[in-house]
């Protein structure tokens, strides 16, 4: 960033792209009795060990946006079909058939943290996801299928702290609300199944294991999925760390220590690092908005307005309240009601009219060709949430840059006002 005034950022055009080497955050990750921090990296950037040797191909920009749209569709589906309704029993282990009555979400969720699992502990890189409830990893012997992952696949038979959950256990029954799929039973062992909105899935044994965040913060008997049939778009990660609101989520299971309080910072680019902290952090500079009640499964957020270039847009409050809102660590592109997106787009295009536009990129329809510019001036974008909270988006959150000749406004409209 070269300069900033009240209403715009001036940046070098080259800063829209990550560098080829990793630059760690300058923020010191301090751990104490009340909190524990993990480093957050982008799955496909130079800071990720999943990216070393590039044996697992990163998705293209178009693929990322298509996967993101699948994730959004599955969120809409989950909101209109709450997961408590149950369904047909699941075919397990011997089949890949599981009900697709709703969808959990995965899409292109792309930020990972590394945790330790088992005794002795094995390091595993898991996608952290505030819209997932169950934590799971691929497990040997991969009875049906495992996708390629960078780290060694977890082998419960080599861990002294692994235990299977019995089918008759009440915790087994609670999988229905956490996964949307009733549990199965094989040789008295509880079997979980999760189908994601993009068709990816994991099926396996439900067990408990020791999960280690840091040398001083380890948790015995964390419920998790030990996947024996895993297929889909997990990008070389070992599975998912579920940070949702269900009682089986990692956040709920560690409530005795962290009281369901956590925070994270996602880095400005895939060549830098952020953090995920469990427990109390310094919140003196934070602005808080109430969690809305849109759904028990998501972290609801009430949008009330948008500003562009220092001017609050004329958008009726009912435009946002009609369908409500939520915050998600895994959805890439912010989705807005059609009327709100139209107003944002019109204002942004007007303030960016000196720059040549170019063709759309998938769901992104406001794209620029900055080939002939070394610096660009970008209007600031702010969001208003209930309680009068205004949050200015960082300049790194304005664009989705595919190439210097195709840099797109990183927002999209929902199809319907009621989505």
């Amino acid at each position, binding site marked *: 960033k070269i300069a900033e005034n009240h209403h715009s950022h001036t940046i070098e055009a080259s800063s829209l792209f990550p560098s080829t080497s990793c630059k760690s955050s300058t923020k010191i990750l301090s751990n104490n009795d009340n909190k524990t921090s993990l480093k957050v990296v982008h799955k496909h950037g130079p800071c990720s060990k999943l990216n070393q040797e590039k044996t697992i191909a990163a998705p293209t920009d178009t693929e990322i946006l298509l996967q993101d749209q699948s994730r959004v569709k599955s969120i809409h589906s989950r909101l209109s079909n709450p997961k408590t309704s149950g369904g047909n029993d699941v075919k397990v282990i011997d089949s890949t058939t599981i009900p697709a009555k709703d969808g959990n979400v995965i899409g292109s969720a792309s930020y990972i943290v590394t945790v330790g699992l088992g005794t002795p502990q094995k390091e595993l890189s898991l996608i952290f996801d505030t819209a997932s409830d169950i934590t799971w990893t691929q497990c040997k012997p991969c009875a049906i299928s495992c996708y390629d992952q960078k780290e060694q696949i977890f082998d419960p038979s080599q861990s002294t702290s692994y235990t299977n959950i019995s089918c008759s256990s009440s915790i087994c029954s609670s999988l229905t609300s956490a996964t949307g799929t009733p549990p199965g039973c094989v040789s008295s062992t509880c079997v979980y199944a999760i189908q994601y909105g993009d068709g990816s899935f994991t099926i396996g044994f439900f067990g408990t294991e020791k999960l280690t965040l840091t040398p001083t913060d380890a948790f015995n008997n964390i419920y998790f999925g030990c996947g024996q049939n895993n297929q889909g778009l997990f990008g070389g990660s070992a599975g998912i760390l579920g940070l949702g609101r269900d009682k089986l989520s990692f956040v709920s299971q560690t409530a005795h220590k962290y009281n*369901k309080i956590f925070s*994270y910072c996602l880095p400005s680019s895939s060549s830098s690092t952020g953090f995920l902290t469990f427990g109390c952090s310094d*919140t003196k500079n934070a602005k808080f908005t109430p969690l809305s009640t849109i759904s028990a499964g998501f972290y609801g957020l009430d949008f009330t307005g948008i500003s562009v270039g220092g001017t609050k847009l004329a958008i009726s409050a009912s435009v946002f309240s009609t369908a409500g809102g939520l915050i998600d*660590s895994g959805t890439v592109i912010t989705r807005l009601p059609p009327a709100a997106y139209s107003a944002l787009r019109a204002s942004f295009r007007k303030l960016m009219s000196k720059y040549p536009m170019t063709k759309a990129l998938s769901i992104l329809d406001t794209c620029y060709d900055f080939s002939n510019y070394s610096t660009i001036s970008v209007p600031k974008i702010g969001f208003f949430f209930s309680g009068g909270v205004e949050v200015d988006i960082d300049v790194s959150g304005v664009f989705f840059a595919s190439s210097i000749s195709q840099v797109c406004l990183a927002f999209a409209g929902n199809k319907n006002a009621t989505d």
Partner: protein
Amino acid sequence: VSIFGNVQQKTLEVFYDGPAGKVGFASGGCS
């Protein structure tokens, strides 16, 4: 629904406080 996605969350520290039922944002959270 509107969804506040992860591109827009970059460099913000996002706080989740379950018991208090609130979500918070602080600028410049990564550095």
